[in-house]
């Protein structure tokens, strides 16, 4: 049984090739725009993962796996979680509590602005982690015996 690889219909291939960059870009927009609208790292990461999975379902494998190689999933998942943990640990360096970003003092910036930036970094971290996790689950589910 094959799930990845080129789909026989050219209509499906072209449609998915045209759509998937925009789906991924919409996910990036949701991550970056979480302060002002619905969404955030969680939903945005899922959308970016959908933009990465769609080429795997429909395009030739040598193309889709060079766009988003297999190592991207585990690597971004770990990096995202690490980013979140580091942002949580940063306030502890100045004597505040875990994840209390407002305690970090940045020159010329109000505490509320620092918390705003902390939220942004956390959203990016969650987005990376969710993207990596989704891509990784898909990759191990579609792993064939001759792949590795």
């Amino acid at each position, binding site marked *: 049984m094959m799930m*990845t690889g080129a789909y026989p219909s050219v209509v499906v291939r072209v449609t998915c090739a045209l759509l998937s960059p925009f789906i991924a870009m919409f996910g990036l927009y949701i991550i970056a725009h979480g302060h002002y*609208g619905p969404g955030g790292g969680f939903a945005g990461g899922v959308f970016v993962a*959908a933009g990465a999975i769609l080429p795997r379902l429909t395009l030739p494998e040598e193309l889709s796996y*060079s766009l988003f190689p297999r190592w991207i999933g585990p690597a971004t998942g770990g990096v995202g979680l690490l980013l979140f943990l580091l942002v949580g640990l940063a306030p502890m360096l100045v004597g505040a509590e875990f994840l209390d970003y407002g305690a970090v003092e940045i020159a010329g910036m109000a505490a509320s602005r620092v918390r705003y930036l902390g939220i942004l970094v956390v959203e990016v971290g969650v987005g990376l982690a969710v993207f990596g996790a989704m891509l990784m689950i898909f990759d191990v589910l579609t*792993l064939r015996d001759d792949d590795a």
Partner: protein
Amino acid sequence: MIVALDVILFLILLATAVLALQVKDLLAAVSLLAGYSLFAALLFAGVSAVDVALVEAALGAGVTGVLFIAAILATARRSDAPSDRRRRLIVLPLIVAFVALMLFASTGLPDRGDPDAPAQLGVSQTYLTDSLADTETPNVVTSLLADYRSLDTLGETMVIVTAALSAALVLARRGEIPVWPQRRGGTDPGDDGGTDPAAPAGTPVTGSSGTADPGGHVTTSSPTPDAPTEAHGGTDPEERP
């Protein structure tokens, strides 16, 4: 929130859930579940929970369906025959009793948006009134999830990454999971095609543009892969779902 629309959506939701349990073809069940998630997302949006609706639509109606289909392709497409009647005689009354208990308990819940509800009397008032001044974030849900209650979000993120790692540990039976870019001398074109420029398959696509730019690939890929992929599709049309 329009009550008639909500009732219609809820009835469709129930119908998709019951049908997903009834059908024997698991592929149809997955499609029904995706529809269920879509209508659930519409219901969430109807009660102004747009953040939840967005996640439900993206995850439930989108990626989860793909993951389920991948799991079906890796296992079997038909579900087993229904179990014997005696088990159903025990299970059905249990379900009915549980639903009746939940409905009875729901009569004790406060109304939605009731200002005197216990959930509105605690710390949530402070979150709602001070969120903009504290964090400069207009979306209270985001400031709650990523600032006030970021420990919860950290836990959720850990759960997701752990779930993915566990899936990899269970499912990657004898192959290794590539966790870092690897250069290897293998000639399998489907594996790490990007790191192996000398892939033997006739690929004008990867040869013409070596960058990882999605837009560039889109323009080059749409006209070119006819010959190799039609041949590819002709070999295994029955293997596609």
